[in-house]
């Protein structure tokens, strides 16, 4: 219907043009009057037919908002208050509700970050995949279903003929993400908005979905807006990149130019993230922490989550424990801290054998072994001030009181590059990076020999995470503290580790110095893992797919 009135396709013409977009939202914060904030301000962009434009930025940069504006949609009280969105030459913002409905699902389709939530749990997949095509009359039911099966095949979904008859919960996350891509392609739109489609996936799954999406875009000649916070991912799929920050455009250019010769300082910082200088240290003759043949299970031995795990951490050095979700890396931390007593094996720490249960450990054992968490905001009591949070270990372990304690708190705040002014603040009044710094100070206050860092940078934006990593390395030099650094992010591992343990399904599959672990020959899983981490390099995806030896772990 809508397509009949359209001007004939000009293959190289401009498909989408956004001019001077302004988006606002009303914020209701407790105890204050509602106020309007500007989320996107004066952004303009143009996208040619069949091209892919990457939108990149940290959280709050407005990238999803811009993507959704190409469908005339504002999420949760967000309003487009200024500018034009020209699609196929028409301003879709002027077409009214009916006009928007004709555009959505036929000219522009959307792929969400979490396909698991974006599919209706009450309906089979096929009905949902062909729904938009039937609604807009672009195909009959039989045609649409045939097309869907072809797309399932193209996207390398297992059992493409019958997968459509399953319910969303019967299909894995990585597969669901591909089904959602098929759903977007099924109504043969001119433009697809991909909103962080691989962010929720494990790294070995991500690469396959990414490759499938890239092929599908190319073969169908559809244009795409690809939204992500990961520069390495966007490099693989887009022709051009726009860098956004706080709702404004920072830089716009060809993909190669952005990553190889960025012009703006902010872009340069994003590109050079994780290029931390860290010299690998030689292992000491006697490890600080030695985990020997540990096996652990939940449910009284029913579900084994760790199998015969052995790792060493050396004094003043960093062991990175790397693995995907379900690999048992966080369980290892729980076992070492005594929260989950192992059913076999032993843990030696600072030449003492640690008791299995937390309750049986001496106060010195507890003090010398500290922990930092992924989510800094729930790792601190919201009802305590920074002074109390950092001061409590000083009171508890060293009996410091009053002025002596306050002096030491101030010193620690200095060490984490936050001034004395923060001493009376509550956690809610700190930024994400500051919160994590306070958690670091709390751990340092105990004068530990070893700190377990559980995904401490995963919840942070790349630049903030970078600052935290640099701080941790600096503190390691000063305090001579060892880190057991749990992460799923290999870039972080490469940046800070002295030795590495790779975990897979509850077992350590590779353990040694950083150079040893990262030098071939690899075992199958390490090879898969290493080859799956996107690099900031045009053409990496194709070569990586070619060189893979093992099928993805998840799917």
């Amino acid at each position: 219907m809508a397509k009949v009135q359209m001007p004939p396709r000009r293959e190289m013409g401009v498909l989408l043009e956004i001019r001077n977009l302004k988006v606002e939202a009303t914020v209701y914060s407790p105890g204050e009057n509602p106020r309007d904030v500007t989320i996107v301000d004066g952004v303009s962009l143009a996208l040619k037919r069949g091209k892919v434009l990457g939108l990149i930025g940290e959280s709050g940069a407005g990238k999803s908002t811009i993507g959704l504006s190409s469908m005339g949609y504002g999420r949760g009280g967000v309003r487009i208050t200024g500018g034009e969105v020209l699609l196929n030459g028409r301003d879709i913002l002027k077409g009214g509700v009916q006009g928007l409905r004709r555009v959505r699902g036929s000219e522009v389709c959307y792929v969400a970050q979490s396909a698991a939530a974006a599919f209706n749990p009450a309906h089979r997949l096929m009905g949902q995949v062909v729904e938009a095509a039937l609604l807009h009359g672009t195909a009959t039911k039989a045609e649409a279903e045939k097309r869907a099966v072809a797309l399932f095949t193209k996207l390398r979904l297992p059992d493409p003929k019958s997968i459509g008859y399953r319910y969303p919960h019967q299909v894995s996350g990585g597969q669901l993400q591909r089904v959602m891509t098929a759903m977007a392609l099924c109504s043969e739109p001119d433009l697809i908005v991909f909103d962080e489609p691989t962010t929720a996936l494990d790294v070995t799954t991500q690469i396959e979905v990414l490759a499938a999406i890239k092929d599908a875009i190319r073969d169908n000649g559809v244009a795409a807006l690809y939204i992500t916070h990961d520069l390495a991912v966007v490099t693989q799929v887009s022709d051009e990149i726009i860098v956004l920050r706080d709702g404004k455009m920072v830089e716009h250019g060809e993909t190669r130019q952005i990553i190889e010769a960025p012009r703006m300082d902010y872009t340069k910082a994003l590109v050079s993230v994780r290029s931390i200088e860290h010299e690998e240290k030689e292992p000491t003759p006697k490890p600080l922490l030695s985990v020997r043949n540990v096996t652990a299970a939940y449910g009284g031995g029913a579900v084994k989550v760790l199998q015969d795990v052995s790792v060493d951490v050396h004094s003043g050095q960093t062991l990175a424990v790397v693995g995907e979700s379900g690999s048992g890396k966080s369980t290892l931390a729980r076992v070492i801290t005594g929260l989950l007593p192992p059913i076999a094996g032993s843990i030696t720490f600072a030449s003492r054998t640690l008791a299995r249960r937390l309750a049986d450990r001496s106060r010195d054992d507890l003090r010398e072994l500290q922990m930092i968490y992924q989510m800094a905001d729930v790792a601190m009591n919201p009802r305590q001030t920074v002074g109390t949070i950092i001061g409590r270990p000083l009171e508890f372990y060293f009996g410091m009181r009053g002025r002596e304690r306050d002096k030491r708190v101030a010193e620690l705040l200095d060490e984490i590059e936050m001034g004395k002014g923060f001493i009376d603040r509550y956690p809610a009044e700190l930024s994400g990076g500051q919160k994590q710094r306070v958690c670091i100070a709390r751990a340092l206050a105990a004068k530990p020999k070893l700190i377990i860092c559980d995904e401490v940078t995963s919840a942070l934006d790349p630049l903030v995470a970078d600052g935290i990593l640099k701080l941790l390395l600096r503190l390691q030099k000063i305090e001579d503290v060892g880190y057991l650094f749990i992460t799923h992010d290999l870039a972080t591992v490469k940046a800070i580790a002295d030795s590495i343990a790779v975990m897979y399904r509850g077992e350590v599959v590779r353990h040694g110095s950083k150079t040893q672990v990262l030098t071939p020959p690899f075992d199958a899983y390490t090879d898969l893992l290493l080859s799956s981490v996107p690099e900031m390099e045009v053409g990496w995806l194709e070569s990586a797919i070619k060189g893979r030896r093992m099928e993805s772990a998840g799917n």
Partner: protein
Amino acid sequence: MLNFKRIPLGAWIGLILTGLLMICALLAPWIAPYGNGEIVGDVWEPMSWTHWLGTDNLGRDLLSRMLYGARITIFISAMATALSFSLGAMLGFMAAVVGGLLDMLMSRIVDLLMAIPTLIFGLVVLSVLPANNLTLILVMGILSSTRVYRLSSAVAADINAMDFVEAARLRGERLGWIIFREILPNALSPLVAELGLRFIFSVLFLSALSYLGLGVQPPEADWGGMVMENKDGIVFGIPAALIPAAAIAALAISVNLVADWVLTRTTSFKGGRD
């Protein structure tokens, strides 16, 4: 600190009305124009300057009865609420923090008690227990404590699962510190709101029992009992029974307004100063 300008209108109305009724209850013997049981006029006299609210079914001054009634209504409800809270919150917190067998056993008992509607079980028990105010307080308090137990154990279990409590455990803190310094400050707001709701429940429960003739026994009368005393006037168009009924409603609504306000403050809670 509490900012008076930020208290919404509804909460103000609630606070003032609740305060007023509390003052009436406290000062009843001094501000009541007549005695509680004193017969001062004809049956069901209309409102007049001598009897502001008229007289009741026996010719007693209704205003004076209302003031004394406020006293007993609020006293019994408050005592029952206090009992339900100390019992429910204490056991709930223990169950959440200690966990294990204790948690399971108590939760099953509470499930069982909650499987019978409160009013019905209340009636069953009152059919054999001696009719006095202590019985009322005990029965209402214990039955109501099941809800407090559910809430406090759920809230405490939520907080207990947070990383900052785990951090305190890893530090080696004792149970006392964990309950009183880590969990309690964060559980306070929902519990205070629940306190209001439990009080309303007690008021309505007591009124219903007294209305049914099973609550406060004559010659004493709470508001629910006064509704019962005067209910026969309704068919003759005499609204005396509606006055204590309206007073119960006013008390419940005003406490509800306050609780509602505390609750919205809770849901918008992110810690820090307030």
